């Protein structure tokens, strides 16, 4: 009896962990009028070096790229790309985002007093692909989504071995730089999705 209850605990824990892991990476696709938008709570870019930069009162520019693919790993058939400027309100301790590069004459869109998750979600909301641009993929055909971010600003990393070679501190720095480099761009793919008519 005890062995069975242990099994249940292990199974429940495993299911919870699996659910949490999958949930963190979950991507959902929504159709709003003639546009396709995505939500990806696990697609975080306000972290690591860019986050330190923001907390130092600097702004950070990030490019977000959304592509709709006919299958995993394929070239995109439709794409949306936007550039955002993030900043961190030093007194409110909340994030602000401005969509830059909007066509001349149109007011730039922005949002403030956001948590990091809300700021990331707001950026994704601005990234939509017209259903008409999807072609056959917009007609109940499975498709995939590729999301990419690239942090465009950042202090250049110090030149490797600029001093007396690698030291233990150098090793830590080297590993940190690799971590930082990973923080500066990331791509995820998710699917398949279908748009119901």
């Amino acid at each position: 009896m005890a062995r069975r209850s242990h099994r249940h605990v292990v199974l429940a824990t495993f299911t919870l962990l699996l659910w949490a892991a999958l949930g963190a990476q979950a991507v959902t696709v929504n159709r709003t009028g003639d546009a396709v938008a995505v939500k990806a709570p696990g697609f975080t870019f306000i972290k690591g070096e860019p986050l330190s930069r923001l907390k130092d009162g600097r702004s950070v520019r990030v490019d977000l790229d959304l592509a709709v693919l006919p299958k995993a790993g394929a070239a995109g058939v439709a794409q949306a790309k936007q550039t955002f400027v993030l900043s961190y309100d030093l007194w409110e301790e909340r994030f602000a985002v401005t969509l830059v590069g909007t066509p001349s004459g149109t007011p730039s869109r922005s949002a403030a007093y956001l948590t990091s998750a809300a700021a990331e979600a707001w950026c994704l909301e601005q990234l939509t692909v017209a259903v008409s641009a999807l072609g056959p993929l917009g007609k109940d055909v499975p498709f995939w989504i590729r999301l990419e971010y690239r942090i465009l600003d950042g202090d250049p990393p110090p030149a490797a071995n600029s001093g007396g070679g690698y030291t233990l501190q150098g090793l830590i720095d080297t590993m940190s730089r690799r971590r930082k480099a990973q923080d500066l761009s990331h791509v995820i793919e998710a699917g398949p999705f279908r748009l119901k008519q």
Partner: protein
Amino acid sequence: MLLCRAGMRTLHRALPVFISALLLMSPRPALGQQTDPPDGTPVTSAQVSGLELTRLSPGLQEEIGKIAGAPLDRAKLRELAARIEGELPRYVAAVRVTPDPAGGARVVIVVARMRDPEHQANINVKYNVEEIKIKGVPDSAITAELRAEMDAMKGKPFEPEQADRLEARLRAIFPDYDVSRRTMKGDQTGLVTIDFVLTRSESSRWLQFEPNKSHAFYHTDQGWGAFFDMPIGSDNVRVSPLVAWDTTEDSIEEISGLGLRFEARKIGSDRFGASLEWSWYEPSWRSSTVAAAALNPGVGLYDTRTTFTPMVSFAATRHLRLSGGVGITELEPLETFLSFPNSSMANVAIGSIGYSLRHKDRKHGDDPRHDFEAALTVRSGMEGLESDFIYTRSIGQAEYRFEAGGHQLLVSGMAGVINGDAPLFERFSLGDAHTLRGWDKYDISPIGGNNVAYGSVEYRYSALAMFVDAGSVWDHDAQRKFRISTGVGVHAGPFFMTVGVPLNTDNLRAVFTIGLRFSGLGFSKY
């Protein structure tokens, strides 16, 4: 009067600044006193406001110079303003014409820089600047002009672009320093303080610390070995505990032991430095070394080696370094080895001249980088120092590294000669994880040699490497044989793996090394 071009709609953020500048530059006369001078009116004076003329092309400067004295031509002036905007895309230009009391016309071309919309997107622009601090340099180094610039920012809204300009100025004024900036909450609600932190860059130092030689690796023929050099300290002073475990790097000995190195690279001045190193090593001897030493009575094996090396250094220039000192070494004899009945001293006077050129002025991480380092070191055992070994060991070494994008080229070479009878730790060797990769030093010369000549060329692309090593180590009275090896490798941070193959031999075999190496450019100086 403002020039209106379609593109200027996007410049709406600049307009308040721009209009203010116009108003400041052109005092408005009382109503009814002024009429716009018609085209054709002689221009008595012309000036450009808000911009150094030298920032414009010579042709445009010449055109602007011709305005005064010529008849007023508004179309031409608008064209010149458009050309200024064309040459300086981040600026807007407008023309203001006012009547001259003598009946002529005065022309002012007002130029203003647009605010960067991305900087405006920083939400902290709503806060006023409470304080600006520059840390890392003495107050006396901050010029009155710089201080005035800082004061001008205080009490006003935080402008990231202005802070960027100040940061750029600090970089220009203090080229030997790395500048970082941090904006923080001020003491009062709604205010922010800006800290600029200046730290002395390593490349600007007159004297460099001893290069780190830490490594831990496996070699097919020589087994596992490790050496750790763990510096602890500040910018100018550091202490490095040294730990060796069965390492054969750069020596015929396979040593284990401990050491401690103290270094100071600023004694009164950036040009003077000193170091003090104590080490105690217990060598293990390969059977081939024992056999070769038995046949060569001039080469004795020892049980332990204890060395004390005080040195002083002087930097003649930022690139040229002179060092001198002594090395006091006591060798305890092996009990089973009869050639050393008592401990013996190998005391040397050391002189070294080093040259280094490091490419420190790269603006971007992608810019090509050149590094060059060379050194000539002479160690001389003499009776005056009560040395039991009388010899002179001279070695010249040079390394060059070129980096561009993911490509790296490393070229290194050395040549050395020993005159007299030197102890085994001073004898040259080739054929390990660092030199003549593919050969085994204990096959080439198990007791080393008193001459060496060596060269290596290595090309790396990203993490992949291919190399060709060539060299020879020999004794004065022996025949010299030149050996060549080639191979490929992988280098990722401190991790490395190489496969080297000796070329000019019948015994074609691969020598594999894998491990960690924390050393960069530069060789042990003494």
